[in-house]
């Protein structure tokens, strides 16, 4: 059998990459990947192929050969005709579908980690600056494990009486109310959530909820209640302890000297 041309090989590799991303990663082993991300990855694949074929002149010429032949070779007039019909037709169809496509509503680009204010507040009480305010029970972890445990237990109760409707039994953001919420509730089992923010940050987000988001956090659209209306300061700190205890992820701390 004739060895396929370099052009064909590249074309096949390109398509395979797409299939891999779209159906294997985005289907068999995980959830579907958004088109824009696939597009980004495919652009990279395209660049990679382009780099590979064009970095050496001989290979570049070999790659271009079928294109050249199709364009000018006397013996390839049928093929040329086919492409001369096919490509404009494809372009025609492509343009049509693009124009006729129904517009989709704008997504909800939301600031996931809004900028916290300088001071941490509970109602009107200033608890310190965002950097410095600490969980008053955190130190028990080292110096009084019993008390620490009891605070975690309190936190557990607070969580299951208030939070789990949305954030779920397993703290994975899949509570029984979660389906109808947009954006979805935070998933504390995600390693990107707890370890990236300080306890004071969580205190702020819990106590002020969706309505307490700052202007720089717009366009916000969070169903998170203003929990300071329902919970005491201690309860909020305790529930933060519980979150980290249950998931095993520690909120961000700031090392010595800050």
């Amino acid at each position: 059998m004739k060895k396929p041309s370099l052009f064909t090989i590249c074309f096949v590799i390109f398509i395979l990459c797409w299939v891999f991303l779209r159906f294997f990663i985005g289907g068999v082993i995980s959830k579907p990947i958004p088109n824009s991300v696939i597009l980004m990855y495919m652009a990279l694949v395209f660049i990679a192929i382009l780099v590979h074929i064009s970095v050496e002149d001989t290979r570049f010429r070999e790659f271009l050969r079928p294109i050249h032949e199709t364009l000018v070779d006397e013996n390839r007039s049928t093929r040329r005709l086919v492409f001369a019909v096919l490509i404009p037709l494809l372009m025609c169809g492509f343009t049509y579908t693009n124009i006729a496509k129904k517009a989709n509503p704008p997504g909800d680009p939301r600031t996931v980690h809004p900028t916290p204010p300088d001071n941490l507040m509970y109602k009107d009480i200033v608890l310190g600056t965002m950097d410095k305010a600490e969980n008053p029970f955190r130190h028990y972890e080292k110096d009084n494990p019993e008390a620490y445990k009891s605070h975690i237990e309190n936190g557990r109760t607070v969580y299951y009486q208030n939070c789990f409707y949305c954030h779920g039994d397993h703290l994975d953001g899949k509570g029984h109310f979660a389906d109808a919420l947009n954006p979805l509730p935070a998933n504390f089992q995600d390693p990107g959530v707890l370890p990236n923010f300080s306890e004071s940050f969580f205190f702020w987000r819990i106590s002020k909820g969706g309505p307490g988001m700052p202007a720089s956090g717009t366009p916000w659209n969070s169903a998170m209640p203003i929990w300071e209306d329902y919970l005491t300061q201690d309860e909020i700190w305790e529930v933060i302890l519980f979150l980290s205890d249950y998931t095993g992820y520690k909120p961000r701390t700031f090392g010595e000297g800050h």
Partner: protein
Amino acid sequence: MCRCSSQTKKRIFLIIGFVLLGFVLFSIVPAFAQDMTDAEYRPFPMIGSRNAAWIAAQLHLLFGAFILGVPMFAVIIEFIGWKTKEERYDRMAQEFIKLCMGAFSTTALLGGVLVFILLWCYPKVMSKLSGIFGPTMIFYVVLFFGETFTLYLYSYGWDKMQGRHKGWHLFLGVLLNVWGTAIMFVSNTWLTYQTSPATQYGKLSEKAKEGWLEYTLSQNPELTRAEVLKDVTDATVTNLHNETTGEFLGTVWDAVNNFTWMPVNIHRLIGNIAFGGSIVAAYAAFRFLVAKTKEEKAHYDWMGYNGNFIALCGLIPLPFAGYWLGREIYMFNNTMGVNMMGALFSWLFIIQAVMIGILFIGANYYLWSGMGRIEGAEKYARYRPIMIAIIVICVGIWMTPRTLSSISTASEQSAMGGSNHPHLGWFGLMTAKNTVVNIVILTTFLSFLFYRRSGKHPTANWKNLGNIVISSIFFLGVVVIVVIGIVGFAVESDVRVNVLTPWQVLVALAVMVVVTIIDIFMYRKATTSGTIKWGGMTDRSQYVLILLAITFTSLMGLMGYARSGLREGWHIFGVMKDTSVDAYTPSLSSAVNMVSIIMVIFFALVGFIFWLGLWGEKKKQKAVPTMETETLAEGND
């Protein structure tokens, strides 16, 4: 000078005129500032104050970066030429400085324009800053003088000071760089102070300590001196002003030595080298593309290669410097850090990732293309697809955003089960990004290593062992980096930021250093089989060089936007609020537009200056040194 044509003279006068104009504008800073405190803001016609200041500042900065970066490697290359007695190096260095000369006056002029705009539009801010930094501004003027003077001596004395006086000429070059670096350090104080007007108590001068203490006590009468002093050494002192009187409580040094000053200095120093190299390379690429003769092509191929090499040298440590800067910002103010990485500017960093990806891919592409003109480089070609794959996969991870909410449709989000992809979301975390960037750097380094080795055969009898050692070091290094990266998902961010990431960087650096050393020894007495056919580069690779320069420029512009925008609604963060009409952070898209406009202006100006440079050259036919069988890498060792 007497040998100069009349046109050259004209040019010189033009340049001096520009410089003087800039200088005059500059020197009136304090005078202006004192009188204008009554008006807080004045509008700039048509485009508004902020945009005016933005354009002027960014252009000034780009030119400044160029004129600060280029002399650094010009001197080094001149030195190499002196030691190796190869005239072509000397020629190239001189050509670099000629490029510099044209840019220098433009820089000065733009600086003047900037100061004028700032003084006109933001008198209150300028008065406040000049109140704090008065002495440094004078120092700056002195330095500027020194720089101008030295540059002229250096440039116009080039031909005269050949031979016996070469040592002195080189000294001038070094002096030029000292002036230049100092200038940058001084001007950095002003803008870093605006971003992070704070330092640790322990680092303050005695005067500032005392002043701050007094002020704190006066503000909190219930506290005693001992109470305030307790545990205060590590505290961040954010406000060195008496808010009621506006008096500055410390010495100038206290304002200078703020959190981000040094990181910005280092970051810019390295960045300038990379930027300068890439602009030089772009210039060479342009000359290559328009060159008519073989000799010319060979020369500019070689020059482009060197420019790109310098840019790469700067590019590799740049992420580490950036990481340090980021860390200091987090240290200064956590909110600002979160703002930078997670909130306001997080998308900017995705764009940055895309650009850095382009830079790395482009740089590698150029190296691989270059191997096409070396005989005997073919044996490394078989590794290329793997390296392409590694780089592309790493860049893919590097540019994968954490949150896809703004680039995915609602139904895609529901299919993913949220705005984070359950698996790709992991790529969005810092530890993944750090890991891949280290791997990309190592791969780029490997490309360079191959390039260096192309056409050479080591004669050392331990060459096989050496290769095995080098391969295992690479392998181990990558494994360690990946393992650290994976561990990074599980640890607290504090540990990750302060322990794991530095270790990753150290491992990458160690691999590069050790491998370089081994490689140098291995190839010490290498025989050469192939020759470099300078001028044999493809046109494609030259376009890549130009693309790299453009990418660099936009990148600098965007990062400038981030650094400046981090202050949000403040002129001086936490000290002086921005109450002007522009007191909001522009959106990313408007920033991108702005940066693009600035980039176009910049390249237009650069093109004009280069054209000016060509002007004088047209008449005299340049003697281009013939290329011998040596590789350049050797020369750069």
